């Protein structure tokens, strides 16, 4: 059996894009995908390109906000990456970077915005605090309830339905082998790396590889168990809503600093409304979260999400909702992404946990360098080494 350089577990954005970058550099790569490419959060998310600090980073105290601010360096790289992608991959990705506004209504929220903008400016992002009137000049549909906003000209959105397939098609052209409908079922290790057993239909496929990248989104923790590792990734089920197509009414990405809201008008004219409202994950027969079934819509989340959307951007209230859907994504124990090699399992890399649509393409570029043993310090703050203590008694040579 010929030994591959890298097997990527997961055919989502991070997996497809990293496989492509690795193959571009000449590595032999296979992608193992349990469903089909883009079936998970990579295709089900609402396509925000958000580079400001997210509201979730700001609501759990200053210590966590400090830690989260580390992500700013990566956000700066991501802005460049998306601009490059627009040139590299063409118009089908519908990359639309016409600005983003994170709005505030109350005095408290305005103070949070002020602190946030200061943090971002310090981190090298050119966010600007503007008043409600200026926000309404930029985005005329915003309501009078908006008293201030943080404006970042490079924010926007892209098409999640197009991005992963574009990377996967290029990866396959560059020689990447895609195994879809294929589930990793067993892992062993040897002197040269890892031996993976993958079940596709009725057949078991054996793969030998030097390195492995786990890029399985919400399934990352479960895949980690096959490597005898704890990967502190927690699945979260979110709600998203889409309206009928509408005439152009919103150029920017709208977020809210004190409420769960993200809103944009996609290229086809549909308004996408989300922002992190919870859905309820179903349980499997053993009582654990069932990651293979879609989460259940929670009516209060729906009313809450559409309520804040209608209050901040009233024209949306007149549109028809055609679909509310749930999608399962993942976050880490400390909110910052988990990207890099697992110290207790040499040759096993992981990339998961938060904002992986916005950051996925840049993760892929840097990870490929890391996996190919090039010097790459920009990912070190996201290294799984920070959770090394969880794996003090884990890993080991796997028979």
């Amino acid at each position: 059996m010929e030994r591959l350089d890298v097997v990527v577990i997961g055919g989502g954005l991070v997996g497809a894009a990293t496989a492509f970058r690795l193959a571009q550099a000449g590595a032999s790569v296979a992608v193992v995908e349990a469903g089909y490419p883009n079936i998970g959060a990579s295709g089900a998310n609402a396509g925000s390109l958000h580079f400001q600090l997210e509201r979730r980073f700001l609501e759990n105290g200053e210590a966590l906000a400090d830690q989260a601010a580390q992500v700013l360096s990566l956000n700066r790289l991501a802005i460049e990456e998306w601009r490059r992608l627009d040139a590299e991959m063409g118009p089908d990705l519908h990359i639309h970077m016409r600005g983003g506004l994170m709005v505030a209504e109350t005095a408290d929220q305005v103070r949070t915005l002020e602190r946030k903008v200061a943090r971002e400016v310090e981190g090298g992002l050119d966010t600007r605090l503007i008043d409600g009137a200026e926000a309404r000049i930029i985005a005329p549909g915003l309501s009078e309830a908006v008293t201030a906003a943080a404006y970042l000209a490079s924010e926007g959105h892209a098409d999640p339905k197009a991005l992963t397939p574009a990377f996967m098609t290029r990866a396959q052209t560059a020689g990447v082998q895609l195994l879809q409908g294929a589930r990793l079922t067993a892992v062993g290790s040897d002197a040269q790396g890892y031996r993976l057993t993958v079940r596709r239909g009725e057949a078991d496929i054996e793969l030998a590889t030097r390195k492995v990248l786990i890029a399985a989104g919400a399934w990352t923790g479960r895949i980690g168990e096959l490597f005898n590792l704890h990967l502190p990734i927690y699945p979260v089920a979110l709600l998203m809503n889409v309206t009928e197509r509408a005439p152009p009414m919103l150029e920017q990405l709208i977020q809210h600093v004190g409420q769960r809201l993200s809103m944009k008008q996609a290229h086809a004219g549909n308004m996408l409304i989300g922002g992190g409202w919870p859905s309820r994950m179903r349980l499997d027969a053993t009582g654990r979260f069932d990651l293979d079934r879609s989460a259940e819509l929670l009516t209060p989340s729906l009313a809450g999400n559409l309520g804040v959307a209608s209050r901040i951007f009233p024209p949306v209230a007149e549109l028809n909702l055609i679909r509310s859907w749930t999608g399962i994504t993942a976050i880490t124990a400390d909110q910052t992404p988990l990207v890099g090699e697992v110290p207790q399992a040499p040759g096993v890399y992981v990339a998961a946990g938060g904002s992986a649509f916005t950051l996925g393409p840049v993760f892929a570029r840097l990870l490929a360098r890391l996996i190919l043993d090039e010097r790459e310090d920009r990912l070190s703050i996201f290294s799984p080494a920070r959770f090394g203590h969880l794996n003090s008694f884990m890993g080991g040579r796997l028979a």
Partner: protein
Amino acid sequence: MSSSLSGASPDYDLAVIGAGPAGQAACLSLNGALRIAVIDEQARPGGQILRQPPRAFSVADWMTGRAYRGLKARLAAFEALSNVDFMGGRSVLGLREAGGAWTLTLSGPSGVEEVSARRVLIAGGCYDLAVPIPGWTLPGVMSAGGTQAFIKSQQLVPGKRLAFAGSHPLQLLVAEQALEAGGEVAVVAFIQPFSTLVWRAITRPWAALTHGAVLLSALGSAWRLFRAGVPLRFGRPALSVEGQGRVSALRLGQTERFECDAAALCFGFMPQADLPRAAGLQVTPARPGGWKTNHDEWMRASRRGAYVAGETTGVKGAEAASAEGALAGLAVALDEGLIDQDEARRRARPWRKAREAAMWFSALLEAVADPGPFSARLPDADTIICRCEDVVLADLQAALARCDEVGSVKLATRCGMGACQGRNCEHSLLSLAGEPHSERSAFTARFPARPVRIGDLAAR
């Protein structure tokens, strides 16, 4: 489940979705025993068959006046029930179960509201099967059911000169009604050969005997159309509609072209299945398309407290729907402990017989009207399949060549992502992807079952 554990007690004992023959029969067989909410999209009860004249197929149209009178008498009895709150003019957007209660999210004249009940009966009827042919999205092209509703409710013909085409014998009746209402009928064309229609009928002699009057009325319509000089055509699978900005002709293959200013297509009907699917009830593929909800002999669906009746379990007309509704009502009474097994069985007997008889006819009609799988008669590659998102056949074939998962094709092409959420194109895509298929591999049914104004759902 005790209501003290699940918070506030539900508003009703039973919620019935659909006030057609099935929903009415269920309420009537409960003898005024429970608090019942009946929800319907129309302002008054009756269903498609009695309220507005049928948008969808209904057996009564084929029936003698006597049977029609029976349905009307049941409607009058239903309207007199004092234990029923009729909530008309409301669409059910969502249906969910928690802690032993079902919650229905409704959209109506006063915005969005919720109603809860310990049990729910889904009897939501059916809708026209859309079969894509070249030109089917041109203005002026309607379903035969829609054309019939228009004629009956407005006493107007939609256009001066209509062309009918499809596979379902209902189009003979509608064409005759169009003539009677003063319209001109350019042609009635069937995709099947005449011999196939007749052969399918005579290979089911029992149905032909018991429903002789029905078959005669279809034949009668055909005869009267023929006498009036209307061209009848059979065995013309290559249908297309022509026109610039509006329908101007129906073309049958290369040879024949019939000028018209409206076209009615009639290929049959599919169960309304959004709510059962979104509620996680087990369904199986229906013919000629769509999904019918699984049930046991008492019309219980796969989740506790959920019952189904009428076209929801497979399209088969008003008589079978009434019988199933009555059975579902008895099942609710049985499950509530209002009646015992013996009484339920005894009272169910005549309804089971009626259902069985009606099923013979529906099996016959299904066989006669079957347009066959979409994949067996593909239109031109540039024919629109998903009309909401303008996805053409070639787009779907290209996506299927890359990955034959329906979900993947949807993501790649936007097929099924528009305002109708796949209600009209899912069956075509499934047929292209190849049979057999399961609900699990099809589109995921989601809230809302009908588009609804954002402002109506928003928390204030």
